[in-house]
């Protein structure tokens, strides 16, 4: 209840900047890009005002930003940064290096479209480019969740059983720039929760010299190394749930790997990531009032993918609609649809799935679109064939 904690208005970016302020990492190296800018702008002000002890490193590009973060993390520092879109794309080679060197960096991403054509608005094209880089990836639905996810991210990244970088993401403009109702925990609560960070193998521990990111070429060294990365991120799912639940206990706000609404008896289910899940739920409530059994499933974590939780939530449905906010050109299915189909197939669950693409480049995701999807799922369950992927909201 709101009586203990004061509800106030804030944008998603303000909430992420404040989450990072409360954690107060040792180093932040960042480069501004719309719609992430107000995160690093806000954080830079905290540094200037002496509210944090972070060493803020101004760099000339995102490539340099993540390079500096990797260096600082390998040296033993707790590190955070933030980026978006072309900036995340520009970090691509460092993304792999950060994960491969097992640097527990926390990076916020303001999910945004990629050029061309130029577009500064929200979708998931940028973040899906990072899906195979070895980073843990979380999606926030709201500004409040962006705050909570960011705090949990530090705990997950730095867990000795994980030691992987985390992307804590929020949708461009809809979450980064819209003013929403939020609450914030006390600084000390956050500091106590994340605890102090002690790197396991810091480069600056000169008494115990180590090498990071060494040469591993012929022979099976490289493969063995990559296998440990797979083990680490697969094991991270339980760790995310554990630390998320711990944070939920402190805050009273739920934390589930997969947010499942109405799925106990739902015949038709929409699976969707991020900020538009609320629209799907709002429409689902309207349809429930008309007696239709509909549900909405939203993975809060995309990497590692919570396949079992998705199957558990969807297994009794008659038809499933997956809405992606990015495309995977040349693939039969967009990223989220591919994961959902794979999860169902591996579990031996045969339910027809409709693929949809919506909200590219900030295109408004409307209630009418959600209704269209639910209607088409009914038709799908009745045996009506549909073409492979539907782009919602345009005349194809």
């Amino acid at each position: 209840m709101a009586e203990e904690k004061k509800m106030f208005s804030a944008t998603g970016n303000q909430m992420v900047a404040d989450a990072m302020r409360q954690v107060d990492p040792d180093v932040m190296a960042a480069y501004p890009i719309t719609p992430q800018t107000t995160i690093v702008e806000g954080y830079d002000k905290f540094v200037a005002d002496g509210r944090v002890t972070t060493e803020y490193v101004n760099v000339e590009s995102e490539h340099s930003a993540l390079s500096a973060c990797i260096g600082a993390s390998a040296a033993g520092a707790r590190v955070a940064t933030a980026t978006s879109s072309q900036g995340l794309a520009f970090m691509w080679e460092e993304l792999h290096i950060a994960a491969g060197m097992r640097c527990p960096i926390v990076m916020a991403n303001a999910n945004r479209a990629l050029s061309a054509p130029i577009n500064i608005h929200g979708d998931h094209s940028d973040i899906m480019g990072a899906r195979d880089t070895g980073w843990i990836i979380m999606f926030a639905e709201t500004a409040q969740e962006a705050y909570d996810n960011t705090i949990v991210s530090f705990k997950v990244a730095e867990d000795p059983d994980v030691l992987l970088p985390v992307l804590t993401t929020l949708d461009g403009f809809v979450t980064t720039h819209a003013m929403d109702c939020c609450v914030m925990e006390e600084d000390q609560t956050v500091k106590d929760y994340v605890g102090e960070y002690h790197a396991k193998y810091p480069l600056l521990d000169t008494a115990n010299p180590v090498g990071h990111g060494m040469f591993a070429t012929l022979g099976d060294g490289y493969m063995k190394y990559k296998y440990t990365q797979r083990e680490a991120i697969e094991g991270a799912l339980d760790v995310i749930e554990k630390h998320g639940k711990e944070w939920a206990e402190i805050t009273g706000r739920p934390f589930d790997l997969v947010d499942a609404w109405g799925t106990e008896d739902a015949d038709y289910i929409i699976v969707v990531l991020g900020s538009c899940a609320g629209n799907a739920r709002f429409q689902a409530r309207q349809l429930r009032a008309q007696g239709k059994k509909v549900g909405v499933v939203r993975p809060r974590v995309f990497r590692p993918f919570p396949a079992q939780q998705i199957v558990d939530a969807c297994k009794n449905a008659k038809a499933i609609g997956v809405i992606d906010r990015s495309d995977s050109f040349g693939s039969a299915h967009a990223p989220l649809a591919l994961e959902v189909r794979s999860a169902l197939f591996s579990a031996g669950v045969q339910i027809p799935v409709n693929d949809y693409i919506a909200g590219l480049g900030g295109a408004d995701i409307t209630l009418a679109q959600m209704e269209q999807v639910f209607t088409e799922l009914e038709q799908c369950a009745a045996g009506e064939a549909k073409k492979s992927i539907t782009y919602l909201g345009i005349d194809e």
Partner: protein
Amino acid sequence: MSQLTEIRWHARAGQGAVTAAKLVADTALLQGNYIQAMPEYGPERTGAPLKAYTRVCSEPIEVHNNIQNPDIVIVLDDTLLESTDVCEGMHDDGTLIFNTTKTVEEIRKAAQVPDSMKVAVVDASGIAMDTIKKDMPNTPIVGALAKVTGLFPPELVKERLKITFGKKFSQEMIDANLASVDRAYQEVQE
């Protein structure tokens, strides 16, 4: 039953519509409501047409997209009527508030507002020039909104303005803004 009010703002970049959208939200928040306020970002050029949105609800707000069927539309620049259908998607019993020197009848005709909708006019720019000494119609129009819709009392708008402006403006500027709210509250015509 939850009470949801959806407001769409039409303005030109530089008129302070985004600030006003947030002022309305923050004022409603003082009443214990849940709120959202967001701009529809386009090219950031002074004078370019823009839209902004405010949602106010007694319950938590789940939807996060643009407002398509507003209850209230606020138009900060009547020259937008040449290029914009400000009534688009409105509910039949909706309310439109214009910053204009035209009369209710003139603006109803110019904007082709159906008879079922309420129209209110206020010279917010004129009031702003008198009080704030700048053509910033965004603060006074919120006073007009308070009068026409009864969404909240004008005192609450002023209380919120003191909180927002108290940190960054002189007392003279704050007083001018408060006066502009009162004048628009009194002068708005329906």
